[in-house]
């Protein structure tokens, strides 16, 4: 407060100066470093290789040093009055702890490992160094406090990389029983990542001219980088699976008339013009190329069945709980029970299916048991999200409908449910993502052999049979054991059995299975999101 009144804060900032530009470049530099660190962490950039003609580690070190020097220079320039800023008297406790943590680590590791002084001294040294960093952050004016300790950290990290103290071949044996080691492959990107975050934070504060505006900028950069990294991690994950999976998926692909398998469309038997054996074949001794068709179809029907079971039950329960039941002990119990069910481990659901459902449905693992088990798993989420969605439908709609003399049930059907549908669909999307990837319940309730021949692809629609005696409709296909993608993947990884000599590259086969699982889940997502978009549009724009 006092600092703000001492230095007259200008209402209108002067035009962009060179110093602003320098601080801006520093912020950009930290963003670049952040991106480099993330890519290096996922081995998209090789540490031993080189970027732009410079060794990767050297480049990282150089950039870090430059960033650190810039940050320190900016703080010093501001303190000495060369740069026009508006700092507070102190950087604050949060910044102090933020700066202390990395220095505790550095001080401790250098004392105990590099200098070999032992654990006790290491702890003391770490705390001491951290305390110095804390004091240096909290005690001086903000412009120095929020730049000097962090800038020094960046320079130190950069110099360690530049001088080759830590080079790509470096590894720190922890001498633990499990033979763990921290390798440069992990340490360099991780250190760069955190250093870049700190550098970005400090330089964003500097860019904002410290003070309230500087803190706002610092927080903004941190939050922004955070959001970016979430997107980045997601993209990298998907990209990684795609890159690994595509070769296996494309094995034996053939395009041309009559190359694909025969399918019957509208009663006409046609040979598809494309042949992708991985998704069109099962596993058979005589196949040229093996595939996972039964597992794909199994996953598909599994999800459909679970959704068909859970959505009507769940939405119905939610309607009862929000619209009819009086809020009280009973609804609270139901709430606790649904939340508890949702956090119940899936293997417990699987065990329930195994012990309760299987003896009742033909005494063997079956698609139907799997569907019901996963439906029960999905149920609590559908109830929870549908309830939330219905509670968020404004009471004004219900009042308006009641004032027109419309009965409660009709109000629910034509006003409350349509308004709540996008929320319900969101819940189902989230739930489908979870159950489509469940392995344990499938393992216990549904999965037959690890590898199924294409002829065992479950045919639910064609499986319906009409009988003259009750129950009139039967579907043996539902009572057969089948496979699903997550289980298939699990079996491939843990057991690796049954591939035989027909799969040339088991690793590619696994990755391709993972890719297909990802694609199946993502396409369910896409369907869900499209549905939600449709209902939202209908609510907002008709």
């Amino acid at each position, binding site marked *: 407060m006092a600092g703000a009144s001492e230095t007259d804060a200008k209402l209108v900032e002067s035009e962009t100066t060179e110093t602003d530009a320098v601080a801006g470049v520093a912020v950009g530099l930290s963003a670049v470093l952040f991106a480099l660190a993330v890519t290096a962490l996922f081995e998209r950039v090789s540490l031993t290789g080189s970027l732009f003609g410079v060794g990767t580690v050297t480049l990282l070190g150089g950039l870090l040093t430059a960033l650190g020097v810039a940050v320190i220079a900016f703080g010093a320039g501001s303190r000495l009055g060369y740069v026009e800023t508006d700092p507070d008297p102190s950087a604050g406790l949060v910044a102090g702890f933020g700066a202390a943590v990395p220095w505790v680590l550095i001080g401790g590791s250098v004392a105990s490992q590099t200098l070999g002084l032992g654990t006790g001294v290491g702890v003391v040294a770490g705390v001491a160094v951290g305390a110095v960093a804390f004091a240096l952050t909290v005690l001086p004016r903000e412009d120095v406090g929020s730049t000097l300790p962090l800038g020094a950290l960046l320079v130190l990290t950069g110099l360690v990389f530049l001088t080759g103290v830590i080079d790509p071949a470096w590894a720190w044996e922890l001498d633990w029983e499990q033979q763990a080691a921290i390798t440069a492959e992990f340490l360099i990107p991780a250190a760069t990542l955190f250093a870049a975050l700190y550098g970005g934070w400090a330089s964003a504060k500097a860019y904002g001219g410290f003070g309230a505006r500087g803190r706002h900028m610092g927080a903004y950069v941190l939050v922004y980088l955070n959001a970016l990294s979430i997107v980045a991690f997601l993209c990298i994950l998907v990209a990684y699976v795609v890159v690994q999976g595509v070769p296996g998926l494309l094995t034996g692909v053939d395009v041309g008339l009559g190359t694909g398998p025969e399918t019957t469309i509208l009663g006409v038997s046609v040979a598809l013009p494309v042949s992708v054996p991985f998704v069109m074949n099962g596993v058979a001794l005589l196949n040229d190329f093996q595939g996972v068709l039964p597992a794909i179809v199994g996953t598909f029907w599994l999800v459909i069945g679970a959704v068909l079971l859970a959505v009507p039950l769940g939405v119905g329960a939610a309607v009862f709980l929000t619209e009819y039941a*009086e809020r009280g002990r009973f609804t609270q119990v139901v709430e606790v029970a649904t939340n508890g069910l949702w956090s119940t481990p899936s293997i417990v659901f699987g065990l329930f299916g195994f012990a309760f459902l299987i003896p009742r449905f033909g005494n063997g693992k079956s698609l139907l048991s799997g569907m019901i088990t996963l439906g029960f798993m999905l149920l609590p989420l559908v109830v929870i999200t549908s309830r939330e969605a219905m509670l968020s439908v*404004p009471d*004004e*709609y219900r*009042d*308006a*409908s*009641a*004032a*027109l*003399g*419309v*009965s409660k049930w*009709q109000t629910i059907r*034509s*006003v409350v449910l*349509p*308004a709540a549908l996008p929320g319900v669909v969101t819940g189902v999307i989230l739930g489908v993502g979870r159950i489509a990837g469940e392995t344990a319940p499938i393992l216990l309730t549904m999965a037959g052999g690890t590898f199924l021949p294409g002829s065992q692809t479950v045919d639910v629609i064609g499986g319906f049979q009409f009988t003259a005696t009750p129950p009139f409709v039967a579907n043996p296909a539902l009572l057969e054991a089948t496979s699903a993608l997550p289980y298939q993947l699990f079996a491939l990884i843990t057991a690796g059995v049954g591939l035989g000599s027909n799969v040339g590259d088991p690793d590619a086969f696994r990755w391709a299975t993972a890719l297909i699982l990802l694609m199946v889940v993502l396409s369910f997502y896409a369907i869900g999101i499209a549905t939600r978009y449709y209902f939202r549009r209908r*609510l*907002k*724009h*008709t």
Partner: protein
Amino acid sequence: MSENQNPQTQTSTATTDTDQPLTTTTGETDERTRDEWTDYEFRGEAKMTVDDLDVYYGDDHALKGVSMEIPERSVTALIGPSGCGKSTYLRCLNRMNDRIKSATIDGSVRFDGQEIYQDGVNLVELRKRVGMVFQSPNPFPKSIRENIAYGPKKHGDLDTGLLARLLNRSDAEERDRLVERCLRDAALWDEVSDRLDDNALGLSGGQQQRLCIARCLSVDPEIILMDEPASALDPIATAKIEDLIEDLAEEYTVVIVTHNMQQAARISDQTAVFLTGGELVEYGDTDQVFEDPHSERVEDYITGKFG
């Protein structure tokens, strides 16, 4: 009309003694223990007759022995400070208070001579005939057309469903006539006639409120209850709503709750003043209530000394 309220009044004033100095001085002897001037003589028929109406929310006595006759085809304004029970009173007239679980209602409300607080009352029919417009515009998130057709459709008066269309029995034309009539009556037709299929939430606040009035008209009500219908609107939209209310009074009986005394003075034929504690203090011709109120407390309230 209201002399039979003595015992009730005495018990209630024992607990809420702050605004009722009169009871302590004259309560034992004078029959009219409360400062109450509700004998309003009007020409024509009473559309609604309320007798000794008490409403409790749990232990809270929200409305105390209100008796009042509402003449047909006129605008009746209910004014009073916040929390005086005027909205509660309004919601008793079409039994919307039934939807509040903690509310208990005691007393008699007769609509065209028929008691509405008795067993066997058809709430659907009652609410069709006693429509309601709320404080904040609350159109459904549907198209303008569907908003208006909603009530008649749900009552089975209009059928435009798939089956009806297949059987060539669709009431689409009838529906469109109804939509046009209601929108015209609500003075909204000219503004929206070219976008009846647009979502109602895209209209401005004032248009939404007139749409709500049109929606209320769609089920052919006899009485329209309005709960501060213009309080969320700007002056121009408010003026339109006020004009509309005056027009509606030629055909319907309008009861309107308002915070705005000028509004009550402008549009109403008779005014009822509720004061804190849920009592009806004065009810009479609007000009008389505003220019020469019998009750001192009402005069204080109207001239701004209280409330």
